[in-house]
């Protein structure tokens, strides 16, 4: 994307369907288009998770053998801590965005890095949990759906952390974020998305046992 073209993208979010009454000669609202397109993409992406969730519910309610032999259930304490970390990181990233909005670039960097660290902690916690489990990917539909859901979500968290690091790096380009930044807004939105998906996933897998 070309930073020179980037406008305050969040300002255009409110009215995505307004009739395009723009100047007749050339040009259009590039940042607004990108944000609109990104939201459309996220809506579409959410259907994949939705499909996995429906599949999980069907298996859980109809499978002849749900838990593999020797497995009694899932430990909920560590994942609950993980959940708290991930959910609070959504507020931290919001604070970072406000700092950017108020042109406090170091405040933005601090809270942005904190978000990335909390996301990394979540991934670490997920890895620790996976290592301690007594069943694997091929242990029936329970093992399959568990690793599929947590793994697919984990890939999204990893993507989010990588995007955050890229945006952090870009903040050191002089004058880059003077007029707001589509990448920051999109990463933040993506992070909230990953967060909401995790809440549903946590309820389905850990709470509903």
């Amino acid at each position, binding site marked *: 994307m070309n930073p020179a073209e980037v406008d305050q993208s969040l300002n255009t979010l409110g009215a*995505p*369907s307004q*009739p*395009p*009454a*723009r100047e*007749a*000669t*050339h040009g*259009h*609202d590039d940042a*607004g*288009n*990108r944000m*609109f*397109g990104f939201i*459309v*993409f996220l*809506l*579409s*992406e*959410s*259907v*994949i998770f*939705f*499909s*996995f969730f429906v*599949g999980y519910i*069907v*298996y859980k309610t*109809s*499978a*002849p*053998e749900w838990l593999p032999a020797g497995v009694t259930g899932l430990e909920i304490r560590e994942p609950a801590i993980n959940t708290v970390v991930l959910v609070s990181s959504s507020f931290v990233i919001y604070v970072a965005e406000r700092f950017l909005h108020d042109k406090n670039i170091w405040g933005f960097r601090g809270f942005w890095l904190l978000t990335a660290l909390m996301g990394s902690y979540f991934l670490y916690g997920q890895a620790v949990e996976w290592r301690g489990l007594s069943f694997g*990917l*091929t242990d*029936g*539909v329970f*093992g*399959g*759906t568990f690793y*599929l859901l947590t793994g*697919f979500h984990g890939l999204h968290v990893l993507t989010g952390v990588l995007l955050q690091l890229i945006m952090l790096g870009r903040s050191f380009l002089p004058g880059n974020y003077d007029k707001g930044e589509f990448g920051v807004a999109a990463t933040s939105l993506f992070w909230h998305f990953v967060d909401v998906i995790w809440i549903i996933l946590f309820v389905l897998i850990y709470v509903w046992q």
Partner: protein
Amino acid sequence: MTNLSVEAIAQIEQPLPGAPDNWKRFFSFSTDHKVIGIQYLVTAFFFFLIGGLLAMVMRGELITPESDLVDRAVYNAMFTMHGTIMLFLWTFPALLGLSNYLVPLMIGAKDMAFPKLNAVAFWMVPVFGFILMASFFVPGGPSQSGWWAYPPVSLQNPTGNLITGQTLWLVAVAISGVASIMGAVNFVTTIARMRAPGMYWFRMPVFVWTVLAAQIIQLVGLPALTAGAIMLLLDITAGTSFFDPAKGGDPVLFQHFFWFYSHPAVYVIILPIFGVFSEIFPVYARKPLFGYKVVAISSLVITGLSAVVWVHHMFASGTPGWMRMLFMATTMLISVPTGIKVFAWVATIWGGKLRLNTPMLFALGGLTMFVFAGVTGIMLAAVPFDIHVNNTYFVVGHFHYVIYGATVMGMYAAIYHWFPKMTGRMYSEGLGKLHFALTFIGTNLNFFPMHPLGLMGMPRRVASYDPEFAFWNVIASLGGFLLGMSTLPFLLNIIGSWVQGEQAPKNPWRAIGLEWLISSPPSAENFEELPIVIAEPYGYGKSEPLVSNPDALEVAHESR
């Protein structure tokens, strides 16, 4: 812009659409939506010929009751590849090409919202086309489980290799899905946010409405298939048991994932064709489209209903009774918005000054066959009838009337109608009419016999059959070969006319629409000045202008 001197014109180095090295841009990573549109169309037509060749070999096998032309396993691979190629490498890309070319012109935009994404999405088509073709050369040959890849058939891996026809098939379909999502995001954003001043929602041509409706289906439905495909791929490669009944999995769940997308996919295909019909009938009947707003909205109604009909493919899959009744009702309900469109087209043609040139003939032929397919569709929606003819040739006949009768005829109608705009040349009317006659006769000869065959009980996807089915199969095979031949006058016409056809004026059909206000072919940036739309579309028989600045649209140095 008309005050540019001749010298100034000569100095401007623009990729002139008529320049001698013009063809090179079709082999480049161009971000011009018009170039990408033609790239899609040509690539898709190439695969259409391959898929058609496979179909002709299959019809050659079926001309005699015995399995004597190809091995049965080869036959299985052929119908699988035929279906996959025709859907993922012909109809989808061809319609994307048409939509790519027309949507920005029709809404008065200079390009799509994301031109680079558009180009990336296109170049994925040759990539996954190559991967799919490569499956002919791996041990065990291509996938043999049909284009729907039902487990447990698709889970079988007798060769034990990791790279089998089935995994390549899944990878190709996955890449196709990624490309389609990119395209859908692009189209929805373009239509929602790139319209010219004054191009309000209810001033958009119906084609744009139908593209919007079709691309929304891609966004909602395709991820469900992606989810199912990921699980199937894990079953095949990583040893999970999602769909393997022997290990506690549920193969019917895959059918749900598959049809939740793949039935609406038929609407992704047919909706833009509805748009083509809605564009073509008013032009050649010289009348405004009957009930424009209702036709436009009915596209979105089809989108909504398409999400709740998929189980009609699974009436014979142990589906509970309440589900059968529910989905029978929703399936029949979808004929209401579709029927509204058909009535609107008939009312548009009714009493019009008809001009029966090639695009109009193809559109009329396509509409006729669509009505026939609609009638058999309603029959199939009824559970008792569907149970009776499930997996017989009746179903094959029905969807080929939709996919070939309506869709391919509609594609041809669109290609002829916009050929002067795309190439700046006129096609040969005589060859076009010959092409129409061969296609119309061939389609009916090929696909009508499948209905009596299905009612008699001939199952689909078989290489040999009882001799009592021979009569209709011979006719169908002759029709199939005729359809193969019918592409020859088309190719001759398109290539010949592109090279040395008569120069096309801006608006050879006296059609009303933004794309007909600019030169043929349009300049790289489409419009010098964005059009300011002041009227509703299809103002035939009225003398109101469509835009307030018709003389400012043309890019001056490129006018002919």
